[in-house]
């Protein structure tokens, strides 16, 4: 693989975390405009752990995921009783609050003679653990793919067990869910926590690939894209959001004929898809057909 392919694939993988994160909340019946906040939390905490505290990479990733999941649950706890649009705006407010706070967040330590750490709006550079450890881009791509595989595996386990069914029931009809004995609040908080952890995992991986991060990268635009990926790719399976990322970043960005017109083409494509399939390409009926075909 050449360097360009590797970088495109890495990007696809990293965005997939964010897209899956937004997708999980969609399944649980909530629109979140703010999953980029957890991506940012993961990127900053993971970066601080390895670059400032000099922890090993794995520990940085673990702390990022834990923090993302904890903050996800904490934010969900007061906001879950809000309905629909109010929840969406609350997530947006939280994400923008996070971004604005990172703009003034400074935490620098002297590491080998250089001041290292987040420096407000100037960003946070020198997150170099991966390069210092001599990990090649191809190997790092394998790490990203491995983590993504783990997330997909987790969702697959939840589909095999009761987790995804619970999320779907609560998402589709919270009143019925409650009368079936499911606690809607608890299920949604669990979903938000899971979504926060997954986005933070992507963020930590992203920070170590990019080596430089800044608050402006975690804008609303990023979050709304993540949301759109799931809606385009389809709500029927966890592969849906990944398909959405593939179409946007994989197909359009890498096909250079569209250079400069990517959004015009992508936007038009999305609009057409949604007219024909309001719940995305891999929607629930499609997945049923696939399953029926597999059962034969």
């Amino acid at each position: 693989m050449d360097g360009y392919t590797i970088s495109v694939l890495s990007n696809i993988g990293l965005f997939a975390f964010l897209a899956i994160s937004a997708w999980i909340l969609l399944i649980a019946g909530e629109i979140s405009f703010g999953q980029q906040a957890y991506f940012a939390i993961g990127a900053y905490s993971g970066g601080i752990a390895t670059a400032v505290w000099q922890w090993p990479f794995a520990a940085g990733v673990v702390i990022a995921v834990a923090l993302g999941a904890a903050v996800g649950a904490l934010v969900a706890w007061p906001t879950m009783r809000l309905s629909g649009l109010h929840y969406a705006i609350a997530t947006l407010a939280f994400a923008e609050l996070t971004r604005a706070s990172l703009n003034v967040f400074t935490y620098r330590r002297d590491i080998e003679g250089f001041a290292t750490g987040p420096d407000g709006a100037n960003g946070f550079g020198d997150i170099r653990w991966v390069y210092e450890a001599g990990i090649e881009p191809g190997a790092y791509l394998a790490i990203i793919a491995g983590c993504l595989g783990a997330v997909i595996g987790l969702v697959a386990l939840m589909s095999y067990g009761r987790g995804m069914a619970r999320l779907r029931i609560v998402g589709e009809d919270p009143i019925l869910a409650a009368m079936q004995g499911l606690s809607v609040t608890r299920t949604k908080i669990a979903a938000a926590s899971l979504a926060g952890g997954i986005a933070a995992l992507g963020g930590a991986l992203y920070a170590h690939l990019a080596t430089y991060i800044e608050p402006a990268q975690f804008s609303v635009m990023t979050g709304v894209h993540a949301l759109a990926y799931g809606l385009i790719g389809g709500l029927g399976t966890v592969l849906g959001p990944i398909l959405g990322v593939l179409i946007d970043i994989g197909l359009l960005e890498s096909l250079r004929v569209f250079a400069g017109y990517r959004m015009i083409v992508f936007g038009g494509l999305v609009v057409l898809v949604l007219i024909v399939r309001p719940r995305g390409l891999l929607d629930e009926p499609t997945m049923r057909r696939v399953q029926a075909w597999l059962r034969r």
Partner: protein
Amino acid sequence: MIDFVQNTLDGLAIGSAYGLLALGFTLIFGVMRRLNMAFGPSILVGIFAGAWLHSHWSAGMIPVFLATLAGAVIASAYVERLSFAAIRGDAALASMASSFALWMQLEEAVARVFPQRTYAFPTFEGLPMLELGPLFLRPEYLVMFLTAAALVAGLQVILTRTLFGLHLRTLSDNREAARVSGVNVAQVALLTFLLAAAIGGVAGFLIAATDGQISTKLGMWATMKGLIAMVIGGLGSMRGALIGGLALGVVEAQAQWYLGASGREITTFALLFVALILLPVGLAGGAETGARAEAGRRL
């Protein structure tokens, strides 16, 4: 103290433009029960149409204003057809995602035609600064405030005195009832969209003419301010939209003055977050907002 009053005054002026944006959102949300993410970018198209007229033909304020309105209305019609009329009634999420896709499309289209970072927009030149004792009021702000007030009054007349207004209100209150009583739902929805776009276009024009320069960031900016002001005020209430806009304007102006730009962002979003949790019905929304949400859930 003088500062505080001065900031409040400035905030109210900007807030009246926010209120108009929120009003446009509210009209659409009331009739469609869906979010039009491309609302701001439609206005963006209008503003750039105005700027183009200004730079190529040295057009004056009036033609630029009309071009802005026309651009916003045409772009909105495009959005309505593709993201709302063409998508099934029960697929609110799809409409939202679809309008977001059109947002991307409109923004990129504008950016391709206007590749520079910023463009000049005609300003209200030659108007004198107003002095009210120790306070100052930029004349643009006065124009903004008065236009917003006139527009709200006009909208009130449309809503209460015309058949279209009656239909619009019926549709907002109860879709089923409107259909049964013979309201042409599709037509009223389209007209409402265009009305909202025109209101948004006025707001966009006022903001651009006050700043004197525009960039493609304005689309996202308008969507965000309108959306936030609408939710602060109380979903689906027109009075709420205005109050929400004014409140947002004042809070931003005060925070900007006392805390600076990053302080303003932090304060605004922290307040928004807390307000949503403590007061989800909004500043002006009464029990009715909650009741409306509940109505769909009769067992």
